[in-house]
């Protein structure tokens, strides 16, 4: 915690979106994007269970946690009035439409009724739900760690990667070899993209302002080092990379599920670090 006399005199971390009740928002963003990602990937493999799990994660867990985070939760319906300038407004609209149309699509799918318009619409909406969190953060120019176009792309990669992981889990449970091969390709591609994007992001931010450098140094060698190196790099990336090299065919289902858990833990860890170490630049100009 920053000392009272250092507040905005030195680099100051944001706290509202990660400390105390802020923890709920961290989890909400994670589940909303993971759920929408699972729906998105599941749609390409026509997997009703993956879409259903995605919908539940997004709506019940993500939406529920977001609702609980609000200071005045029962006014949540007011959050849609400024879509022209506010990403939270846009996000609320995307999430609400996705949950409504996604639910109808899943119920129709349950009765083997297909509507291609509804399917396309829900796929587009699920993608918009995956990206809005990143955009909501990257437009905040006071926090250099967030204020980069790479952030929404990383969130898309991680949301879809997690979603592909869940779909892979469904394929393993169903024992569908064809689906397994297809989803595995998605998982590998998204894993590689995620690694490249994450490290490009961290390196590029390090060339920014003092707050940007402070963020990166706190993540890599400061208070967040163990989350970064152990949770994100070793558990979240290292184990899935080993699993990727082994291939899912020869791997027992339990190990695959464990890998999925590692992947999700890594994603959670990365999101925690990005929120926790979002610093504002000091207010006092250097040259006075």
């Amino acid at each position, binding site marked *: 915690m920053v000392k009272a006399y250092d507040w905005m005199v030195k680099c100051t971390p944001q706290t509202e979106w990660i400390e105390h009740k802020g923890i709920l928002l961290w989890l909400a963003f994670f589940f909303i994007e993971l759920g929408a990602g699972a729906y998105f990937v599941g749609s390409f493999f026509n997997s009703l269970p993956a879409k259903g799990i995605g919908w539940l994660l997004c709506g019940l867990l993500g939406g529920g946690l977001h609702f609980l985070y*609000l200071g005045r939760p029962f006014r949540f319906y007011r*959050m849609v009035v400024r879509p022209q300038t506010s990403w939270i407004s846009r996000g609320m609209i995307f999430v609400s439409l996705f949950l409504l149309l996604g639910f109808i699509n899943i119920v129709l799918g349950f009765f083997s009724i297909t509507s291609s318009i509804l399917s396309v619409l829900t796929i587009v909406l699920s993608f918009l739900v995956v990206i809005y969190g990143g955009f909501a*953060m990257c437009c905040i120019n006071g926090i250099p760690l967030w204020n980069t176009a790479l952030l929404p792309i990383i969130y898309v990669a991680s949301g879809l990667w997690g979603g592909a992981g869940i779909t892979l889990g469904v394929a393993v449970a169903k024992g569908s070899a064809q689906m397994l091969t297809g989803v595995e390709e998605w998982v590998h591609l998204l894993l590689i993209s995620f690694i490249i994007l994450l490290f490009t992001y961290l390196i590029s931010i390090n060339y920014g302002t003092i707050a940007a450098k402070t963020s990166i140094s706190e993540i890599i060698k400061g208070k967040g080092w163990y989350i970064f190196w152990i949770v994100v790099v070793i558990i979240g990336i290292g184990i899935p990379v080993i699993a990727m090299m082994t291939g899912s065919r020869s791997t027992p289902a339990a190990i695959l599920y464990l890998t999925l858990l590692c992947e999700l833990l890594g994603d959670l860890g990365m999101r925690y670090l990005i929120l926790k170490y979002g610093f504002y*630049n000091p207010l006092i100009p250097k040259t006075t």
Partner: protein
Amino acid sequence: MARWGMVINLNKCIGCYGCMVACKQEHYLPPKIFWGRVLVSEAGKFPSVKKLIYPVLCNHCKDAACVNVCPTGASIKREDGIVIIDYDKCVGCRYCVMACPYQQRTFYGDDSTQYFPGQGFTEWEMIGKELFPLQEGTVVKCTFCAERIDAGIKRGLKPGVDRNATPACVNACPAKARYFGDLDDPESEIARLVSERKAFQLGPEFGTNPSVYYIIR
């Protein structure tokens, strides 16, 4: 229409925290809530060290980031440039808190906090809850003493000139380091100070165009 603004002369400011206390007192602000603050820092290396004192408050930015991101329309920019929050509309999403690069907004999460914990609210706190009721679960910030300005104008007073139409922090400053007035009126003292005294704003790179300026001579 006027665009209310403030100029702070850093050379005159003595870092007494008078403005900060005056603001707390004027609005009966609860514990841990500050609408104005005084930042103290140092520059240089021993033996030539300079103490930097910056009083800060909401800048009532012309292009306010907080207003742009607010999803409910609770953050409002009035015609006279003052940025206010409609507590009845705020959902407490804190997006505005994130978006303000000057960190001038605070989430008011618990209205049971007392100055003397366990001893009940003081009379002063009780009066505050009636006169300036904040809403638990919403975001709060400096209002440029909009209520003083509005009431003063109704009585034919001039903000920045007449004390009863001027923000409390300006009135309280013993060093007379703060000036208040209409930035759009070229005849006003603050418009003259801004144009003649190389006034600068904090964080110009954020593109918010603050209505609070600083001068150093």
